[in-house]
C-alpha cells in the first residue's frame, strides 16, 4: 500500500536515530569504564581553572634577552603546538620583558610540558667519530656537576686547528687535536649544561645520544649542519613499516622536506652512502634535536624524494609531540619551565549556573512561542530540541574525552544560541508543509512534498554553516577553533535530527486522525490556513473570487501556480474526488 510506505520509512529512521544515540552512549560508557572519560563534559580554563606555567628563556652565557618579536613568534608557535594536541583553548601571553605564561585547563603531564618548552631545533649532521658514552649510568638520577675536566677549554698545548682544511662535512680534518681532547673528556651527564642546543651551525659538535630511560648510550663528534630543520615542510607520526610494508611496531616521525631540503638531503645521503656502513661510522647521519642526538642511522641508500623517517626511542605520544613541533617550526629561543602552579577559574560556578539558567529560560520561551505559533506541532519542535540536546551533550562529552575539547562560558552561550538555529530547520519545514496545505494537498501529501522542498533549503543553508565551521576550524587558531567545533557539531546534529526525528515524527502524526483531519489544535488546520482543498473530496472555491475588482487583479496576478492549477481543476474537472496532481510543482 502506498499509504504504509512513509510510515514504515518513519519507523526505520527513528530506529536509526535510536541506534546512533545508543552507539554514542556506548562509546562514552566505554570511555568512562575503561578510560579516563567522564559523563560530564570537561570545563575550560575560565570555568574550572587549570595550570599556569611560566616559561623563562634559557639563555647562554652573556646572551641578550629575547626581543619582543622573538617572544611573539614563540607565543604563536607554542599556541600551534598546544592546539595540535587538542581543542583545549589555552591562554598564552608574554609576561614582563622575557617570560611567557601558558595557562591550560587540567593538570599538564610531562609530555605537555615538553611539548611547550622545548625549542625543537632539528639538525642533520654527519657523524665523524662515535664511541660508547663514557659514563653509563647518568641521566635524571645523576646530579651533573660541570667540572673543569668536563668542558675543557682548549689549552695552548693542543692545536685548535687541524693540519689540513676540511673539504666536506664528513672530513676528519674538522677534528683538531684540541677538539678530540674535549671529546675524550666530555661527560654526557653535563650535556644539559653544555649549551649544545645553541651550538654554531658551521662548526663540528660534540654531543650524545639518549636512550628511552634517559641514559646516554653514545657520544659523537658530528660535522657541521648539512640540512637544517627549517627546510621541513611537514611532519607526521606513525608506525614505521619495513620494506615489505609490514608494520615493525615501532613509532617514528615522517618528515617531508621542501625543495631546498630535498636537494640538500639527496646530496648528503649520496656522499654518506659511499662510506662502508659496517666499518666506517662516517656512513651514519645524526639527527640532532635541541643539541641531542635522537638517532644516527646508517645511510643505506640515497634519499632523493625528501621524505626521510626518523626512528629512535619513541613512544606514540613522544613521536606525535616531535612531529607537531617540527611541523610548526622551532622556537626562536629555548625556554625552561620556571613555575607550574594550579590556577583557579576566573569565572567560577556562579557564572556557569547563570548561563544554564539563562539557557533554560530561553528554552521555555522558545517552547511557549512554538506552541503559540504551531499549536501541538510545537511539541514536535520541543521534542526535536530535546533529542538534539541529548545528542549534543553526548558528542561534547565524547569530544572532551577524545579530543581534549573543553566547554568554556562562551561555548555554553554558543550552545544556547544553537537552540534558535536548530529550531529554524523545523520552522522552515513546518512553513513548507503549511504552504503545501494551502495549495490544497492532503496532510500526508503535504508532509512529503513540503519535506522535499524544505530539505533542499535546509541542506543549502546548513552547508553554508558547516563550511564556515570547517574553514574556521582548519585555518584559525586559539579560541576561534573551539567556537568552530561547537558550530559544526550543532549544525551536523541539527540536520541529523531533522532527517531522523522531526520528519519521521511528522510522517507518523500525518497518519493519525487528529492531525490528518486538521484539528484546530494540531497547528495544521487547512481551514485556518485558507486551503483550497479541504479534506477528502471537498473543494472550496479558491481565494480568487475578488479577481474582478481593480485591486483583485493584482491578487490574481500574484496567485501561485498551484492555485491556478487548483482553479483549473475545479473548473474543468468534474471528477470531484481527484486530488490535484501531487508532483506538478516540483521543478
Amino acid at each position, binding site marked *: 500500500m502506498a499509504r504504509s510506505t512513509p510510515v514504515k520509512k518513519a519507523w526505520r529512521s527513528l530506529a536509526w536515530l535510536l541506534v546512533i544515540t545508543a552507539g554514542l552512549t556506548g562509546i562514552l560508557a566505554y570511555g568512562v569504564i575503561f578510560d579516563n572519560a567522564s559523563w560530564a563534559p570537561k570545563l575550560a580554563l575560565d570555568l574550572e581553572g587549570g595550570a*599556569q606555567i611560566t616559561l623563562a628563556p634559557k639563555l647562554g652565557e652573556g646572551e641578550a634577552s629575547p626581543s619582543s618579536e622573538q617572544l*611573539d613568534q614563540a607565543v604563536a608557535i607554542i599556541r600551534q603546538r598546544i592546539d595540535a594536541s587538542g581543542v583545549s583553548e589555552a591562554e598564552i*601571553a*608574554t*609576561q614582563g620583558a622575557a617570560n611567557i605564561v601558558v595557562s591550560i585547563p587540567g593538570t599538564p603531564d610531562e609530555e605537555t610540558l615538553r611539548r611547550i618548552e622545548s625549542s625543537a631545533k632539528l639538525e642533520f649532521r654527519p657523524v665523524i667519530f662515535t664511541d660508547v658514552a663514557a659514563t653509563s649510568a647518568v641521566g635524571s638520577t645523576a646530579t651533573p656537576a660541570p667540572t673543569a675536566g668536563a668542558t675543557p677549554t682548549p689549552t695552548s698545548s693542543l692545536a685548535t686547528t687541524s693540519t689540513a682544511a676540511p673539504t666536506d662535512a664528513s672530513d676528519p680534518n674538522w677534528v683538531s687535536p684540541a677538539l678530540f681532547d674535549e671529546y675524550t673528556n666530555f661527560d654526557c651527564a653535563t650535556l644539559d649544561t653544555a649549551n649544545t642546543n645553541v651550538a654554531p651551525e658551521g662548526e663540528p659538535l660534540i654531543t650524545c645520544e639518549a636512550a628511552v630511560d634517559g641514559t646516554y648510550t653514545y657520544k659523537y663528534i658530528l660535522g657541521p649542519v648539512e640540512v637544517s630543520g627549517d627546510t621541513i615542510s611537514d611532519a607526521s607520526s606513525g608506525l614505521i613499516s619495513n620494506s615489505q610494508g609490514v608494520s615493525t611496531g615501532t613509532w617514528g616521525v615522517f618528515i617531508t622536506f621542501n625543495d631546498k631540503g630535498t636537494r640538500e638531503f639527496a646530496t648528503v645521503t649520496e656522499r654518506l652512502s659511499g662510506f662502508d656502513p659496517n666499518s666506517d661510522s662516517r656512513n651514519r647521519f645524526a639527527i640532532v634535536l635541541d643539541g641531542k642526538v635522537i638517532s644516527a642511522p646508517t645511510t643505506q641508500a640515497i634519499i632523493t624524494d625528501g621524505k626521510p623517517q626518523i626512528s629512535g626511542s619513541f613512544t606514540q605520544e613522544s613521536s606525535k609531540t616531535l612531529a607537531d613541533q617540527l611541523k610548526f617550526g622551532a622556537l626562536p629561543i629555548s625556554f625552561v619551565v620556571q613555575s607550574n*602552579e594550579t*590556577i*583557579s577559574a*576566573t*569565572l567560577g560556578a*556562579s*557564572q556557569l549556573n*547563570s548561563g544554564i539558567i*539563562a539557557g533554560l*529560560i*530561553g*528554552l521555555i*520561551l522558545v517552547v511557549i512561542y512554538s506552541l503559540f*505559533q504551531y499549536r501541538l506541532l510545537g511539541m514536535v519542535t520541543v521534542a526535536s530540541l530535546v533529542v538534539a540536546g541529548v545528542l549534543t551533550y553526548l558528542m561534547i562529552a565524547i569530544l572532551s574525552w577524545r579530543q581534549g575539547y573543553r566547554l568554556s562560558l*562562551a561555548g555554553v*552561550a554558543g550552545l*544556547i*544560541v544553537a*537552540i*534558535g538555529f536548530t*529550531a*529554524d530547520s523545523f*520552522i*522552515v519545514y513546518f512553513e513548507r508543509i503549511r504552504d503545501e496545505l*494551502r495549495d490544497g494537498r492532503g496532510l500526508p501529501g503535504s508532509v512529503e512534498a513540503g519535506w522535499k522542498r524544505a530539505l533542499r*533549503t535546509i541542506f543549502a*543553508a*546548513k*552547508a*553554508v*554553516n558547516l*563550511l*564556515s*565551521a570547517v*574553514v*574556521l576550524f*582548519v585555518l584559525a*587558531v*586559539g*579560541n*576561534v577553533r573551539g567556537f568552530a567545533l561547537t*558550530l559544526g557539531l550543532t549544525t551536523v546534529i541539527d540536520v541529523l535530527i531533522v532527517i531522523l526525528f522531526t520528519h519521521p515524527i511528522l510522517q507518523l502524526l500525518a497518519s493519525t486522525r487528529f492531525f490528518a483531519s486538521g484539528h484546530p489544535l494540531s497547528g495544521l488546520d487547512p481551514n*485556518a*490556513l*485558507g486551503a483550497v482543498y479541504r479534506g477528502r473530496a471537498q473543494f472550496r472555491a479558491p*481565494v480568487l473570487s475578488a479577481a474582478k475588482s481593480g485591486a483583485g487583479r493584482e*491578487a*490574481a*496576478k*500574484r*496567485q*501561485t*501556480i498551484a*492555485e491556478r492549477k487548483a482553479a483549473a481543476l475545479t473548473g474543468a474537472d468534474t471528477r470531484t474526488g481527484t486530488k490535484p496532481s501531487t508532483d506538478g510543482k516540483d*521543478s
Partner: protein
Amino acid sequence: MASFAKFGNDLYTGARSINFVGRRKLWYAIAGVMILLSVLLPLARGGFVFGIEFRGGSEFQVAGVADLGQDGPRADAQTLAADTVTGIDAQASPRVSIVGGDSVRVQTEQLLPEESNQVRDALATAFKVDVTSVNASFIGPSWGADITGSAIRALIVFLALAAILMALYFRTWKMSVAAIASLVHDIVITAGVYGALGFEITPSAVIGFLTILGFSLYDTVVVFDKIRENTTEDANSSPRTFAGSVNLAVNQTLVRSINTGVVAALPVAAILFIGAVVLGAGTLRDIALSLFIGIIVGTYSTIFIAAPIYSQLRENEPAILAHSKKLEASRLLSSGK
C-alpha cells in the same frame, strides 16, 4: 494566533503584500544612515575599546596570602581583589584567579604607573601582606596578532568559498553578491552598536560576531532558496515581473523569517538579560549583545537589503527586461480597454 495564520495565508497567496523590493530606495537610505552612524558614533567615542586579551594589561600577583582554603574563602578572595581594584579604577575590569595555594593573581587593563602603585598598596592592605609580596608586571595580549591574523585569513577564505558555493547552488553569482553585501551590512551595524555603546571588544564578542556571520548568510540562503524557486519555475510565463516574483517570495517566507528571528533571539535575550542585569559585564553579556543585535539585523537585512539588491542586479538582464516590458504592455492594454 488565528490572525497570524491568516496573515501568513494572505502573504502566501499575495492577497496581502508588503512591497519590499519596490521601495528599495527607502531601505537603502535607511541602511546608509545606519552604516554611517555605525562608523561615526564609535569614531566620536574615540574608536573601539579592545579588551585586555587584545592589548595586554597589568598583572598583580599577591603572594603568601593566608587563609586561602580550597573551598570557602576563594570566592571571597576573588570578590575582595576585584572590588579593591575597581575601587581605584572603575574601568580596570579585573580578572582574578587563585594561583598555587596561596597567591592571588589579578589582571587588569593597562594602568598608569601611579594607579598601579595604588593598586599594589590597596591589594597589600586588603590581603594583609607586605607591599613587597605584591608583584606588579605587564601581561601581553593572550589574543595575539597571530590569532587575529589567522582568523581574518580564515574569514576571507570562508567568504570566498561561501560565495562560490552559493553561486553554484543558485546558478547565479548575483545572489552571492547580494548575500555578501547584506552580510557586510550586518557586521558593520553590529560592530557599530558595540562601538557606540562603548562596550569592550573581548574574545567573546568576536566569537559572537563570527556566529552572526554564519547566521546572516544562513538566513539569506533560506529566503533566496524560495526566490530561486519562484523565479525559475514561472520564468517567462509568469504573470509577475521579476521584481514581483522576488517580492512574493520574500512575502511568502516572511512568517518564517519572523518566527525564526523570534526563536533565535529569545534564548539570546535570556542570556543578555541574565548577563547584563544579574551578572554585570562579562563573557555572557558580551557574546549575547553581539548576537542579539546581529540576529535582528541579520533577519532584517535579508528581507530589506539582500532581496532588493538581488532583484536590482537582475532586472536589467535582457530576458527579464523583455518579460517585464511584455507584462507592462499587456497591463496597459487591459486597462485601456
